[in-house]
């Protein structure tokens, strides 16, 4: 009985997700291996001929191996920004959730403002020029940290609310200082949400194209999303190469997800409060 229930549910879930989520994915793969003429027809059809290697090589080689440079740049930017984001926004979420005072609503408002107001490009560039961080990788890292801060802080803050204050009290009695309280007691409890922040922000920053476009111009500074412009323009698009490119730049964040997904599962036992 329970076996039927268990596998019936699994089968139904797999069937539905296959239809809803996998069909579009298959479409993307089909497009990526077609020749240019067939891909220009823009339909969901079996490829008449397969051009996996040919398209792959063309995409990689395009514009002097721009994709390789882009991989490197995007990886450096993403890893650094996400590391900073996790530590900084967990700290902010921690202090804001634990310490409620008269200024808390104002800080809340400014944090929400980060989600509500788009950044102003030209004043930001002028400022970055004055600070000497325009057109630099670390400048863009700081921008990504600033722009994605609100999202991470809100996530951390709401999850820190689930950690009983008694734990803090106990650690304080044991003589913990603020930083050791945070890093030794709080942060380990936050494993599931930390993993979520890492995954979500990795995707957001790796896939960002507007900010690199404006704040990190220059050919040697290309990031992965900009490579899509090699094959797509206002008037003519080489769809097969575009979709091969999409596929290639989707793989690194997918690997990150697969890796961290296991961490979420692991967190199910390790993160649970005992006693």
């Amino acid at each position, binding site marked *: 009985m329970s076996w039927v229930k268990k596998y019936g549910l699994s089968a139904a879930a797999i069937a539905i997700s296959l239809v809803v989520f996998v069909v579009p994915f298959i479409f993307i793969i089909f497009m990526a291996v077609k020749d240019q003429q067939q891909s220009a027809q823009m339909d969901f059809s079996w490829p008449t001929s397969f051009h996996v290697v040919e398209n792959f090589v063309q995409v990689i080689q395009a514009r002097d191996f721009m994709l390789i440079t882009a991989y490197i740049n995007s990886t450096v930017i993403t890893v650094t920004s996400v590391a900073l984001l996790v530590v900084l926004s967990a700290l902010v979420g921690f202090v804001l959730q634990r310490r409620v005072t008269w200024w808390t609503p104002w800080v809340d408002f400014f944090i929400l403002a980060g989600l509500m107001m788009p950044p102003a490009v030209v004043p930001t560039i002028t400022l970055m*020029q004055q600070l000497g961080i325009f057109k630099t990788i670390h400048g863009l890292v700081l921008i990504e940290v600033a722009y994605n801060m609100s999202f991470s802080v809100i996530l951390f803050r709401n999850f820190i609310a689930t950690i009983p204050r008694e734990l803090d009290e106990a650690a304080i009695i044991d003589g913990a200082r603020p930083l050791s309280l945070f890093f030794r007691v709080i942060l380990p409890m936050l494993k599931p949400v930390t993993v979520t922040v890492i995954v979500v922000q990795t995707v957001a920053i790796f896939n960002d194209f507007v900010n690199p*476009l404006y704040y990190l111009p220059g050919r040697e500074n290309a990031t992965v999303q900009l490579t899509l412009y090699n094959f797509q323009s206002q*008037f003519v698009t080489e769809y097969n190469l575009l979709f091969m490119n999409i596929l290639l730049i989707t793989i690194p964040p997918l690997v990150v997800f697969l890796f961290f997904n296991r961490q979420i599962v692991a967190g199910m036992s390790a993160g649970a409060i005992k006693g």
Partner: protein
Amino acid sequence: MMLKKLNATLAMGGATALALSLAAPAYAQDQVELTWLVDNGPSTVDIAEALVAAYEEKNPNVSIELEIRPGGGEGDNIVKTRLATGEMTDIFVYNSGSLLQAIAPQQTLMPLTDQPFMDNVQEAFQSVVSTDGEVFGVPYGAAQGGGILYNSAIYEELGLEVPQTWDAFMENNSAIDEAGYIPVIQTFRESWTSQIFVLADFYNVLQAEPDFAERYTNNEAKYATSEAAQKGFERLAAIHEAGYTNEDFNALGYQEGLEMLANKEGAHYPMITFAIPSLETNYPDQVDDIGFFALPGDDADSNGLTTWMPAGVYVPQTTSNPEVAMDFLGFIASVEGCEAMIDAVGANGPYLIEGCGLPDDVVPAVRDMLPYFEEGRVEPALEFLSPIKGPALEQITVEVGSGFRDPASAAELYDQDVRKQAQQLGLEGW
């Protein structure tokens, strides 16, 4: 590499003069590196690569690095942002005509007025890259025409003739419809394609009202009150009402439109001739069956073509090496540079450079376009005569072409859109 970085740093700090003094001797002896920002249209990139290759071969001490940006509105924003913050590349490609005024050429660009190579550039182009008596750019690619790409195999099969008037065009459509082909292909999923009936009708507007552009800029002529100007909207609506379009006109895009034309499913596709290279690439066997004619007006005697000028190549005032940059522009404006472009993307229209003719083996659609230029039956599109082009036109023309909105109210709505644009530009009299 070091030198380039140094130059960039100094220029950024505003010490342009110092940077120049460092760069000038470099020109004579060492390697000079320039950067060049181009949009990502495939023929744009191909042309750029061909020009750079040809120039570098002649000048081994110069190397030019291409940087790609998106086209369209996003691309315009990038160009403006980089100019406004002093971060433009040494050379760049940007629109000619009304959009050029939006980057404040006098403030940001180096004038080319006194450069000897400007003698090679035809007057028709110089006029669309000039402000207050200064010229700023050289042509990048060929001039284009807006009108109807048609399938000549269908025409032959049905014994039709190229129409000189709108009525003749509609008669052809009726015959094509009866024969079971689609008379007019429309592809509104990409809404920019819906504007051609209005934009390419401008030659006909000028025949009726020769001073329309000037009065329009001065807030005197309106689409809603000008019978001639409103005809573009009316004709777009007439095609829809007669049921001459493909049924899925609102779901198809530009590439699919070209495919229908090439595969003889449809007879006419209102389009600008920059579509021809794409037809050549994707449908090499069918391209000989594709012809072109100007959008017909009321009178066969005043039939002519609305033209689109090519984009321009400009040098910003912040360039690291004005002398080499100018020399490169001179190369683009020479017969040699022009031939490099033709080698790269073929001959798709007149190149506007003195002495640069087209080869004899051009495709039929291009051959059909040339007589209009040779006989002087051409006028530039309105966006090259006036700084005002309302941004919402494509959405309005989709509404008209889909039968949601009648031509009169469309013209009124567009006039409102135009007023907003003029006010945002701070034009006098609005």
